[in-house]
């Protein structure tokens, strides 16, 4: 995945190269360098099996890279532009008189770093960074949906429990009212019983005092 091989050349002379894997990219790259004549600026892509060779020539300096076909064109050509600028900034006018592989020892490390950067770092491309951020936002929102659904389930349980509690408290109120009524009636019965007993005692006492059950002496 990504960029696997990179090369910087002048005409058909290779100045620096780096290969991320063991392939025959180097030979094919040399063929491409020899096959592209002239000295004018150009952008071109050649396909070879599953790989595509992207070539960019500016001001007589050729930058070439081999990439997967899934990498598209935007990222490889951004890589080529970046390498070209770094190379020109580092070596300046010495490019036009350099020996073959003259810059390979130090620039191959830069090629390696930039290949790694453009292959795996989403920040290398603004659209890919936006895509990654939108994916993160979507994942967070999906988690939010799951949490809200879970909350909904628990709220349903809570609705059921509070409904049960409401029913129970209604029953409690009814039974409390019934209990109060029962106790009240018992109180009434006891009062009546007390009155009856008192009346009986008074009658018995009067019977003794008046000398007879029919109370003859008192009336």
């Amino acid at each position: 995945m990504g960029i696997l091989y990179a090369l910087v050349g002048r005409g058909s002379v290779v100045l620096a190269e780096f290969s991320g894997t063991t392939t025959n990219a180097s030979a094919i790259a040399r063929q491409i360098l020899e096959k592209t004549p002239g000295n004018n600026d150009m952008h071109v892509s050649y396909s070879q099996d599953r790989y595509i060779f992207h070539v960019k020539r500016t001001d007589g300096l050729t930058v070439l890279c081999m990439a997967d076909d899934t990498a598209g064109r935007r990222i490889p050509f951004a890589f080529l532009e970046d390498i070209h600028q770094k190379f020109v900034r580092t070596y300046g006018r010495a490019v036009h008189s350099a020996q073959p592989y003259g810059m390979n020892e130090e620039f191959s490390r830069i090629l390696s770093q930039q290949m790694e950067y453009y292959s795996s770092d989403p920040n290398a491309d603004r659209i890919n960074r936006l895509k990654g951020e939108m994916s993160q936002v979507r994942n967070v929102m999906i988690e939010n949906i799951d949490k809200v659904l879970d909350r909904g389930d628990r709220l349903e349980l809570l609705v059921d429990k509070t409904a049960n509690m409401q029913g129970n408290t209604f029953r409690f109120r009814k039974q409390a009212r019934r209990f109060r009524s029962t106790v009240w009636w018992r109180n009434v019965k006891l009062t009546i019983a007390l009155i009856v007993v008192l009346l009986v005692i008074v009658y018995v006492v009067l019977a003794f005092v008046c000398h007879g059950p029919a109370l003859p002496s008192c009336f």
Partner: protein
Amino acid sequence: MSFQDIEAGRSFASRRNLINGKQDPTQAVASGIFQINTAVSTFQRLVNTLGTPKDTPELRDKLHKTRLHIGQLVKDTSAKLKQASEIDHNVEVNASKKIADAKLAKDFQAVLKEFQKAQRLSAERETAYTPFVPQALLPSSYTASEVDIGSDKTPEQRALLVESRRQEVLFLDNEISFNEAIIEEREQGIQEIQSQIGEVNEIFKDLAVLVHEQGAMIDDIGSNIEHSHEATAQAKSQLAKASKTQRSNSSLTCLLLVIFGIVLLIVIIVLAA
């Protein structure tokens, strides 16, 4: 101004007819100044169209011809003015004629200044703007160029030129296809971002619906709890009343027991006696 000059010229001419019989220089100068005025107005109108969509190579050509025409008129009128001046110096003429000639000279100076100003403005604008080439003009220019190439160059040079042009066209086609590929890839990326944003939008809408429904559920929970609270409060009140009644029941029960005890005691005492 010009018409007054012409009238003055005529009156003086008729008067000179009676005295001297010569009328050409002054009237010629007046006529020349009038023509220069007209040409300078035309020139100014052409200068005003520089820098507008009407600015075409034909207009530039007309401008150039008008400038040459004005130059010729200025030369002729200057010569005639010199003749009139010589006549004034050599021949004894009346003061009115001298005054008229001086006025004509001043008018001529003013016209020259105006022309120079218009000419400077024209030079500025011709430098600042390039003429607008209409679309129909290009094929004829191309054809003229082709004819020119055909007439000027040898067959070998012509073949080289055609080959170079073909390679240039091929190079431009390559650049165009490359840029189209880059643009298409960027469009795909942007479309993907757009679809993801659409998905996030749908997720937000679903979340809003869920939250709204759960709001209704929470309202139900609240009302259930309030009803439970009211029922519990009423039940508590009923239980309090029942407790008070039961305390009264206990008192009555004790009282009855005491009375029964006393009655039983009295009965026992009476039987024992």
